[in-house]
């Protein structure tokens, strides 16, 4: 009889079967340990009538302190528990928050901000003039690390309590008719007097719609409704559970499974979700400026800058880079939701004949420097490269750095020194953007542009309150920006989020920092 020495022994077979059974039982037991439902999330104490809104955010990349936070996700974390004096609606209208009204003095050199009589912090203490003064002294102080400081530098001289004790008076260095808009910015959330900004996350007192209950680093934040919010009856949700994601795919799947109630739209999200979910588009978020260093050849020649501007297919940029959630721009940094829109300019569109007319038979070669961001920066750079190369008048190379390398804190930092750069700019007032991007000697004047006439017109614009005069000045400013083209503004991106089926109502002021992360009127049914 042949000897079969390779047949498995029975004991071994039993061991094999047992091991497999145990392994699968473990997996199945784990999967079914809570029945067919996924575990519920959010604060149990907050599970009341309006429901807990499950929010997906990217993990904050920077400081989570009201005065210094600069990353959108960190702003959201702070903003839910904090409140500004004033917020801005998606249509550009100012609306009250902790301030009930605001008036400019006859001499135009001061603004009086009246506080809501029932405004309170989450600890139940009233919001007073001294809290507002303390907050702005922190922002404007010599050792302030707040990015908001630059918005007020050269504008605010002092902050003091009003004579009635229920208002605050901002005294200005120069007249500034859009001053209340500056109070809608990030980092201007009102803090209780004496708050140590760097410890805020461990003692997160604010006057926002929610109270921050628990912050788990890298994982998320839970909030419950703030009963002391000045308009608390309008806030219907009983809490918010914010979860941090580091992976876009994971966030998309969480939205599709109903684990989070909203997701920000981008081309890949739009392709995946199509029209099966409700979208809310509200307000403008940013523009990606194509910035020319006008001191370096060939961009010291205005015709070259104009030729680039005439070579771009802006509707294609709006569609491809921003998945249609954008309004075409015309090289003037005035967001479409701003009250005074420039008039009388020719709308630039792709025009190869115009490019040839400006450049002749020259072929201009240059490199665009930008970074591999998460919000379409790379796509934008590649699309511009394709569009310019297609004209035959340009040969464009790309130098895509990491974000850290692009914004390196050195004197030769690429974003302020390379010949052509792409940098995103959040929604700000035209005059703010002028002072940051175009003003001679401005810290972030990457174009190194210097135009005394433009400077003078902007100062006049800031000072006047006469609408007709403002319109005239806005037109003149825009004409110079359009003609000299130190910065190409091809499109303004809009905020666009997909809302889950459990969400009812619409966010009245979008979901941007200047809209106050306003959840009034929203309910969820899960």
């Amino acid at each position, binding site marked *: 009889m042949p000897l079969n020495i390779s047949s*498995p022994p029975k004991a*071994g077979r039993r061991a094999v079967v047992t091991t497999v059974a*145990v392994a699968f039982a473990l997996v199945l037991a784990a999967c079914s340990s809570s029945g067919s439902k996924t*575990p519920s999330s959010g604060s149990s104490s907050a599970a009341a009538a309006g429901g807990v809104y499950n929010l997906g955010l990217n993990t904050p990349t920077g400081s989570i302190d009201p005065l210094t*936070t600069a990353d959108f996700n960190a702003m959201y974390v702070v903003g839910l528990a904090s409140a500004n004096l004033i917020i801005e609606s998606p249509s550009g209208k100012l609306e009250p928050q902790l301030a009930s009204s605001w008036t400019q003095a006859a001499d135009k050199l001061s603004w009086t901000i009246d506080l809501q009589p029932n405004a309170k912090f989450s600890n139940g203490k009233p919001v007073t003039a001294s809290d507002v003064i303390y907050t702005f002294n922190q922002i404007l102080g010599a050792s302030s690390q707040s990015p908001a400081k630059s918005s007020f530098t050269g504008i605010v001289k002092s902050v003091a309590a009003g004579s009635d004790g229920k208002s605050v008076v901002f005294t200005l260095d120069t007249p500034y008719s859009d001053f209340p808009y500056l109070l809608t910015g990030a980092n201007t959330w009102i803090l209780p007097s004496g708050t140590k900004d760097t410890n805020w996350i461990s003692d997160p007192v604010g006057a926002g719609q929610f109270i921050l209950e628990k912050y788990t680093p890298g994982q998320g934040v839970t909030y419950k409704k703030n009963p002391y919010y000045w308009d608390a009856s309008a806030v219907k949700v009983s809490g918010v559970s914010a*979860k941090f994601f580091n992976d876009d795919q994971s966030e998309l799947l969480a939205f599709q499974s109903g684990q989070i109630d909203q997701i920000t739209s981008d081309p890949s999200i739009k392709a995946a979700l199509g029209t099966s979910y409700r979208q809310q588009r509200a307000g403008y978020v940013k523009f990606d400026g194509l910035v020319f260093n006008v001191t370096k050849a060939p961009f010291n020649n205005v015709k070259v800058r104009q030729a680039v501007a005439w070579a771009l297919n802006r509707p294609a940029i709006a569609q491809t880079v921003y998945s249609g959630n954008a309004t075409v721009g015309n090289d003037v940094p005035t967001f479409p939701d701003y009250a005074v829109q420039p008039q009388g300019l020719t709308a630039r569109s792709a025009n190869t004949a115009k490019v040839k007319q400006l450049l002749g038979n020259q072929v201009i070669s240059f490199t665009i420097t930008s970074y591999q961001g998460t919000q379409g920066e790379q796509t934008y750079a590649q699309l511009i490269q394709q569009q310019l190369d297609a004209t035959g008048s340009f040969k464009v190379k790309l130098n895509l750095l990491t974000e850290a390398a692009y914004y*390196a804190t050195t004197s030769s930092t690429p974003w302020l020194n390379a010949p052509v750069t792409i940098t995103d700019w959040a929604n700000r007032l035209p005059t703010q953007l002028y002072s940051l991007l175009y003003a001679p000697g401005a*810290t972030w004047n990457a174009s190194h542009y210097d135009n005394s006439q433009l400077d003078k017109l902007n100062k006049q614009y800031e000072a006047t309150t006469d609408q007709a005069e403002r319109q005239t000045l806005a037109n003149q400013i825009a004409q110079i920006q359009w003609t000299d083209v130190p910065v190409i503004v091809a499109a303004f991106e809009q905020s666009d989020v997909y809302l889950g089926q459990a969400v009812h109502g619409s966010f009245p002021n979008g979901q941007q920092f200047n809209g106050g992360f306003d959840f009034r009127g929203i309910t969820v049914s899960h």
Partner: protein
Amino acid sequence: MSVLSDQAAALAPGRRPGLWSGRRSRVLTLLGRRLIQIPVVLFVVSILTFWLIELVPGDPGRNALGQYATPAQVRAWDVSNGLTGPITGRYLHWLSDFVSGNWGTSFVYQVPSRPLVFGHLVNTLFLGLFAFVLLVPLALVLGSIQAYREGGRTDRGITIALMSLSSVPEFVIGVLLLVVFAVGLNLVPVESGAFATGDFAQRLQVTTLPAVTLAVAYLAVLARMVRTGTAGALTAQFHRTAVLKGLRPAQIVRRHVARNALIPTLQLVGIYLGTLLGGSAVVETLFNYPGLGALLVVAAERKDPVLLTDGVMITGVIALLALLLTDIGLILMDPRIRFEAGES
């Protein structure tokens, strides 16, 4: 590490006088040697980590304050957080704090580093052990079946299946599992972070998909190793002798096949154990699992030297301990194993 070359020589069944005392002596010698080696390795690793993160582009102050902060504000932030000055001084400062248990504060998360690292470590250990528990028995079973059915349809079928699985990246497997079990069947949450600190059953539930994904990633190689070792033992002279002298199949498997076949496998298992317990950035990120791997990726990306170096030290300790355990296991399993001076 050296293994005597006479692989054909079967390990003698039964216990022999002096065998266990010899093994105990070798284990103690190994422990003594590693007690000196491990701190030295960790010291070198900490220097390298601290130095390498300096090379990462960017500035922690800029990361914290954003693009709109002025250079002066960024500089002030860096100064207030002790990020300026010579790297040697900063390293020595970190080292003295680390040794004294004061691990400092993470710049990215703004919380003390030590509880942050240990909190994530616990999650990673849970995930790694879960994956290990799934991986090792499955690999042993599949590899053994293949060896006993060597050349047959079962062997070929399992080989093709495992090779196919191993050629699919972890994140693809993870996404597929999420689509089916989280989005389609709604059995588990996509985002496991919020539940990873729940009760045991809840943790098991949310950790299942990440653990399966991790286990699948290592399964093919480990099963292949088991197959090769087992097949080699089955064709060896000692196995034929054991069969011919009439030993029961269970005795043959336990005393002759398994012990010889598993020695190379055990070495690989030890390496995998260290890797699994050190965290997997890809899987942890995809499943939003709050583990050490994903934490350290964030620390490296955002240039958080305190958190990164603290975390790397811990993963280093785990990897070295896993290696030590493996080596001890090898000594206990195979008396021919010797760890010569100067080798580890």
